[in-house]
């Protein structure tokens, strides 16, 4: 899966944590490329490892095994100082914009901080850059610069977080549930803003979310995660038209859709996500899968390509059953 124009490559990455003395893998052995200029959506339920993946990319913490290559450099081989340099080009924004901002500092200082850390001494130039990014994200610098985060709404705080991420002119931004804490009307503003910023600054995005409709809207490709592994990866339009993995199909059936009011959305997925401390044998989804058979418990399905650009980890993908 090594594309020539991959900005970021993840190879056989595993992240392990210890819980009450027991080691377990939050993500196991995942491999994926993110092409320059694309938006890759990463979707799944809590505990599936999507946020862990986002953090492992920026080496917070570094993966236990495997390799992350960014702009051709293996991040695990960089020393602290080199990693600091790289991190400017590799930014992250989080779900809760208010707690991501230091409540005691003024907006202009928060947004300028990356520049200060990078050693930019010229205060006038710093202020010019802060104004520029604030304007770009739709925050009026004249009224906002001297205020503190609590004087802003959640949506405005997320704009400020985006401004802070943009000021170092990053190549890639990991967006970890950036709109989940926002009201729908504000969520739409932020999603539109991310699209605009992507265009204006030539960004590549890894967009992590539990919300399939949001992910479909913003992504070029979508990867679905379950219990630390990918179960499906395809173009955004494709995965929603013809989901091949029963988990993807099940997730999609749970989305209330205004155009199908009154229609029965079909049975909800049964059960809950199993503990990563003790994942099921074979296919990890089999305990909740309506199509599971003996083979699913015995043998772990390979993450294989079923069509150009469409990968699935399932012994019996839905698209091959003619359904």
């Amino acid at each position: 899966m090594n594309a020539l124009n991959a900005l970021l490559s993840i190879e056989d990455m595993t992240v392990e944590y210890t819980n009450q003395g027991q080691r377990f893998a939050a993500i196991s052995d995942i491999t994926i490329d993110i092409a320059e200029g694309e938006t890759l959506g990463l979707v799944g339920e809590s505990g599936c490892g999507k946020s862990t993946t986002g953090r492992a990319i920026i080496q917070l913490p570094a993966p236990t095994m495997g390799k992350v290559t960014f702009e051709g450099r293996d991040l695990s081989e960089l020393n602290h100082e080199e990693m600091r340099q790289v991190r400017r080009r590799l930014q992250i924004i989080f779900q809760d914009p208010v707690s991501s901002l230091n409540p005691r500092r003024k907006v202009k200082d928060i947004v300028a901080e990356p520049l200060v850390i990078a050693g930019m001494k010229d205060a006038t130039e710093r202020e010019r850059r802060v104004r520029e990014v604030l304007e770009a994200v739709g925050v009026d610098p004249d009224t906002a610069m001297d205020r503190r985060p609590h004087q802003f709404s959640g949506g405005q705080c997320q704009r400020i977080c985006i401004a802070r991420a943009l000021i170092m002119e990053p190549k890639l931004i990991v967006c970890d549930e950036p709109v989940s804490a926002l009201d729908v009307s504000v969520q739409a503003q932020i999603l539109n803003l991310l699209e605009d910023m992507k265009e204006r600054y030539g960004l590549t995005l890894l967009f992590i979310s539990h919300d399939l409709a949001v992910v479909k809207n913003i992504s070029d490709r979508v990867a679905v995660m379950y219990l630390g592994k990918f179960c499906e990866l395809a173009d955004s339009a494709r995965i929603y038209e013809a989901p091949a993995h029963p988990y993807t199909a099940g997730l999609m059936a749970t989305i209330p859709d205004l155009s199908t009011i009154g229609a029965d959305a079909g049975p909800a997925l049964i059960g809950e996500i199993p503990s990563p401390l003790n994942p099921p044998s074979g296919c990890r989804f089999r305990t909740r899968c309506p199509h599971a058979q003996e083979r699913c418990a015995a043998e772990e399905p390979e993450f294989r390509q079923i069509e150009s650009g469409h990968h699935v980890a399932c012994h019996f993908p839905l698209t091959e059953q003619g359904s």
Partner: protein
Amino acid sequence: MDSETSASPLLEVVDLYTHFDTPRGVAHAVDGVSFRLERGRTLGIVGESGSGKSVLSRTIIDILAKDGSVLNQGEVRFEGRDLMALPEKDMREIRGREIAMVFQDPMSSLNPVKKIGKQITEVLVKRLGMPGAEAKRRAVELIESVGIPDAAQQLDRFPMHLSGGMRQRVAIAIALAGEPKLLIADEPTTALDVTIQAQILDLLRHQQVERNMAVILISHDLGIVAQYTDDVAVMYAGQIVESCSTEELIRRPRMPYTEALMNSAPNLADPPHTRLDAIPGLPPNLLRVPGGCRFAERCPYAAEKCSAEMPALTHDDDPSHIYACWYPLEIKEAVSA
């Protein structure tokens, strides 16, 4: 509306105001809300944060602070009795018995240091006066009915041993224990994963039908409300701005805010990178609500009159479809039937 007859609805809220006296001024959280709910019906209340939907539900069951910072006015008539006029002693009889509530965060409504069996039997013994042994049997049934496996074993567990979805099931079991006529579910699935959300909402619907219980489902998610309710009220800045049957609202919204709420959410049917119709700006500050229509500032159709004069709730041919707008949207059939 004649009260005390079979024609009186289960719940009737009349011109209800809940204001908070804060150091920075008076916040108009609920500002003149009226609605009625018949027995066995499901009403959705939808709105964004700060619209007053949760304060409204807390006013109905009277659990807001009693320190004088909450200013109430209006009537909450439950089976003809005005709950606002009831002494706390009588209200306690109604809460958890006649009207039960399920909250967003099940952990905050469960006692963390009490076994879940005990938390359920407590309701049965105290509220229904059931003998202990019978209460225990009933608790097992309740736990089973909310879809928790191995019910008998679960009674001895503490909330911390359960997943978020299972905790919410326990919270629902406790709410159902008193056999309420009305269940208020305030964002019951917002803290849960999407697959668990569908399970919990299906469970609520199943229980609602089985018990012929009335439900108020409060949510920020119009999609959820649309899927699970008979009628819906849209709240904005402390007021109901549109109310009708759920199907009618989705097909023929009249209030521009309702339309904007529908269009701002990404739609699965649209291709990737479809530009979203975001609503510009923010809801008004509840400390300083504007004099005219509260949505005027963000409304694409607003005219001068809108910011000058507050539109009252009105209706056209269909008296069950009310809306507060000077220039309502043309009636148009939704594209997708």
